[in-house]
């Protein structure tokens, strides 16, 4: 147990030493906020049901951070740990493979949560962000969304032969998703037919659930999203365990 805590602490320190990771997790969402907030402000608007641009976008930007962590960070680092022989060396110690995975997930989960928190605080201070939901519900939606996407990140790492391939596959999943899932461009801006197609993107359901929780809607109104994300989480974990390799 002491080993697991130490491993998480080390992972956290390593995260802090990768400027790119810190930038995309913590700084980039803020840039989105100030960019769009600067252009559109956060005045109540009938188009957004009486809310402002920032109010309805915070959930999507959070999903963007989640996707970054899952498909850009986790998928690549898990594959790189294997490829470089870091996992091989750890395997000689009493540590279990689950602990290695747990440490990576835990640290990235906390960092991603931190990214969301910074975003919310800045939006509140600068644009008077409105929030009618329950914090617990938002935290739950965040956890389900993040863990299900992380499990997909591990699937990418497990199936990719090398870290390089994992990076390419991660990007191929990441870019369409951030543009088409509603994370950056509101779904309202899309035509009806497309809005149905984008439901096959896992991230669309993260955005849907997070936005619902943010706006104070009940989980009962979002059973599809909850079911899809829970299913992805279970399947993702199973495939990750199945495809996990030490080398």
């Amino acid at each position, binding site marked *: 147990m*002491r*080993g697991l*805590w*130490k*491993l998480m602490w*080390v992972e956290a*320190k*390593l995260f802090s*030493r*990768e400027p790119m990771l810190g930038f995309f997790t913590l700084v980039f969402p803020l840039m989105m906020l100030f960019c769009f907030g600067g252009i559109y402000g956060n005045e109540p608007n009938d188009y957004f049901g009486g809310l402002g641009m920032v109010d309805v976008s915070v959930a999507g930007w959070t999903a963007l951070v989640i996707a970054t962590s899952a498909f850009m960070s986790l998928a690549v680092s898990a594959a790189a*740990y294997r490829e*470089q*022989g*870091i996992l*091989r*060396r*750890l*395997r*000689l*110690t*009493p*540590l279990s493979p689950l602990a290695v995975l747990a440490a990576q997930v835990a640290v990235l989960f906390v960092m991603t949560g931190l990214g969301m928190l910074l975003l919310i605080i800045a939006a509140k201070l600068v644009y008077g962000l409105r929030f009618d939901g329950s914090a617990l519900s938002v935290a739950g939606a965040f956890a389900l969304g993040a863990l299900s996407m992380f499990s997909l990140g591990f699937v990418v790492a497990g199936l990719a032969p090398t870290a390089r391939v994992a990076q390419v596959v991660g990007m191929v999943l990441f870019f369409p998703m951030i543009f088409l899932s509603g994370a950056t461009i509101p779904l309202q801006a899309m035509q009806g037919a497309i809005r149905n197609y984008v439901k096959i993107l896992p991230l669309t359901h993260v955005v849907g659930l997070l936005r619902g929780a943010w706006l104070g809607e009940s989980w009962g109104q979002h059973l599809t999203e909850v079911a899809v994300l829970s299913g992805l989480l279970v399947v993702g974990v199973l495939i990750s365990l199945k495809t996990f390799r*030490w080398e």
Partner: protein
Amino acid sequence: MQNDAVVTVADLRKVYGPVTAVDEISFGVQRGEIFGLIGPNGAGKTTTIECIEGLRRPDGGRVEVLGLDPQREGDSLRPRIGGQLQESALQDRLRVWEALDLFASLYGKSVDWEPLLDHLGLAASRNTAFAKLSGGQKQRLFVALALVHDPEIVLLDELTTGLDPQGRRGVWELIADIRKQGKTIVLTTHFMEEAERLCDRVAVLDRGKIVALGSPEALIRELGEESRIVFSIEAGLDRESVANLPSVTRVEIIGERAIVHGHSERMMVEVVNALSGAGFRFRDFRTEQPSLEDVFLRLTGRSMQEGEEA
């Protein structure tokens, strides 16, 4: 002696597709000895040592380490062995002290790793990131990580490959030190000189089979390899006067170079006396002892370099 074996390998077999990497080899390692697995690249050294560590699953035969099966009882075994792998790495930005601190925490008992840093000459680089370490520093760090939990058996795979001669000698001293602490060491190397210097006993591997097993001295002696004396002569040498010496078996003369083959340690004295007695002037006089290289050549008909698989 035999009942104090801490590692027992019996009829070990490992195949990778069409390649039989290890072909039914058997040996035992005694407590407190330095045991070497030697042979050219591709001989099966890494496969064997990683079967002992539990990192690879044998396809046949039996491996027992400290009375445990590395595959089924790895949880009990891992705290008691320490290893340095031929291929492994740490996170690029992990610092030396953090690596030691982390690995120490992964074992039940707590160990003070600070003395290890000093001892391995890593104290000055304790804050250096893994990626910034030199090859020798990385090797020493991996040795430190293999020792951090005070294991009973230390397994070292190609410990000095990629090191310069000075770094290599430093590591040799280190291994002698580890042995003094009463630990058993199993190492692999394709440097025969290293094996001769360090190992109490060696298993010579070639294409997955053990072709010789014993102490380096005994192998060299038993295989009847000859010593050689090589020197340059200025005037024509009277071949007979040297060839008839009791310890000499054969004399080759190539141009102004003479190579004298023979057995005993007396050969050098006899040859020098004979040459100076007859008034011959000679220079560049040196002796060449038979080595494990010669043993390998004798046993396989190939030199170590030729023995390497692509």
